[in-house]
């Protein structure tokens, strides 16, 4: 039971790979997803920067990408991945589909978070003569910060589960370890360890996310 063919070094590398993939994907995904989410809010009909064209273009694109399961997306966009990082295998190559997967997801979550902000706040901003940018920066973002943090936490956990499939393109990570060793080579010990590690990671992420969100909302 305690026997395993996986070395400690392999295991550590897997953890590092996972963190590398989810960290970079979350960062780039947020850099794309948050502005898109904001645009979806402000350009929608009745929004503070109402713009039919931008909204009608962005909205279906987000839906389109979101309708693909990650495993399909991963293989479907291989040519695109090659174009961006000049390779289609390895950890870095896995980041491209992870970003393409998570950015629209973040955009949708951010959109929902900001839409939760009371219309009265926007009206107050307008009545003070705030510009649209000031309205976003001084009113919408601070008021939805708690909810945004929770959204990013959800995105992060989603990324963690997506990285398990990154093994398909040789992405590595703990998910890959579980499939290649735990499942394919009947190594139940490493299977158990990865399951425990994944559970702990998700718990940790959610707990930290909740704490940060409460802090943003000034709850004690």
């Amino acid at each position, binding site marked *: 039971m305690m026997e395993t063919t996986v070395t400690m070094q392999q295991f550590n590398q897997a953890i590092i790979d996972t963190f590398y993939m989810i960290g970079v994907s979350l960062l780039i995904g947020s850099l794309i997803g948050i502005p898109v989410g904001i645009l979806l809010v402000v350009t929608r009909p009745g929004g503070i920067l109402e713009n039919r064209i931008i909204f009608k273009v962005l909205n279906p694109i987000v839906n389109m990408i979101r309708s693909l399961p990650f495993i399909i997306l991963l293989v479907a966009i291989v040519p695109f991945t090659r174009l961006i990082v000049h390779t289609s295998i390895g950890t870095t190559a896995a980041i491209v589909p992870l970003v393409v997967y998570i950015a629209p997801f973040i955009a949708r979550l951010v959109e929902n978070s900001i839409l939760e902000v*009371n219309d*009265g*706040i926007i*009206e*107050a901003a*307008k*009545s*003070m*003569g*705030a*510009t649209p940018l*000031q309205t976003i920066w*001084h*009113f919408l973002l*601070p*008021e939805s*910060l*708690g909810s945004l943090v929770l959204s990013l936490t959800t995105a992060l956990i989603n990324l963690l589960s997506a990285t398990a499939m990154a093994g398909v393109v040789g992405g590595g990570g703990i998910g890959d370890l579980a499939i290649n060793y735990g499942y394919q080579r009947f190594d139940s010990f490493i299977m158990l360890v990865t399951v425990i590690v994944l559970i702990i990671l998700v718990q940790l992420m959610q707990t930290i996310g909740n704490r940060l969100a409460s802090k*943003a*909302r*000034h709850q004690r």
Partner: protein
Amino acid sequence: MIVFEDISKIYTRKGIQSKALENINLHVNTGDIFGVIGFSGAGKSTLIRLINYLEQPTSGKVYIEGTDLGTYGKKELRSVRKQIGMIFQHFNLLESKTIFQNVAIPLILEKKGKDEIKQRVAELLKFVGLSEKAESYPKELSGGQKQRIGIARALATNPSILLCDEATSALDPKTTDSILELLKRINREYNITILMVTHEMSIIQKVCNRVAVMENGRIIEQGDVLEVFGNPQHDSTKSFVRMILSDQLPEGVRQQTEADLGSYACVIPFDQQKTNVLINELIKKFNISVNLLFASMNEIQGQTIGYVTLKLSGDQESVDQAAVYVKNHIGDVQEVHAG
């Protein structure tokens, strides 16, 4: 001065048009506390939002200090809005920011210096009596305190006009009174023109000098509060007056009167000078007795207004003559019919 000229506002949703405002003409003088009263759906919220152009009229013009707001571009409109403060029924404070930051926001938008902001916010918090709450968050405050912060925020940019959208409707009567006192003080000390919309008659009665009564998107009566409510013309206006002043006899008094045949009873509007004179004359001229059955009174603008119910009794002929005399001298006589 705020002037509305032939304002109409039509909303079109899914091809169906609905008129929110129709042929609105309105003058608000500098220094007025102008009340707009109406039941929900009368169009008062739309009307108040025309003044800072949060709503644009479908036709007609809004003039502020002589300039038509419709001629302004977006940028100019934003600077006009900084001269018009607004407070709301649900306060609309930023829950994520401290009280200090909430009051500072209009100044931050104007990119004022840190020291200047600090000084001005401290001044404003002192004015509304909440200096010690600077570092608290809105959710730690009561409704009345939140509205005081809303007021402080609205005053930050030294506006010349303050718009109050049902500003006390979410507050209890005592807190409402303290907010109304604060508004009066703002009007007096800073000579800020205040325009408030409400569905509560007592608010108009307590603070406003001028009033417009709205119904179905139209202004049905407007003028000095005392004139409009002292002599209401429309049913809607009358029903508002009834909120603070009953012109109806309580059932008990009515039954008593009806049982009492051979006399004449009527409800007349009370007038500080005329009513006394009338009673004296009735007694002297017709040699009858005049009893006061019931009275409902209140004060508007320092003037007593109300309704009194008189009962005239004596011999039938004199009572009949006296009744005719009353009807000839008082415009608005409501007879209480016996039997």
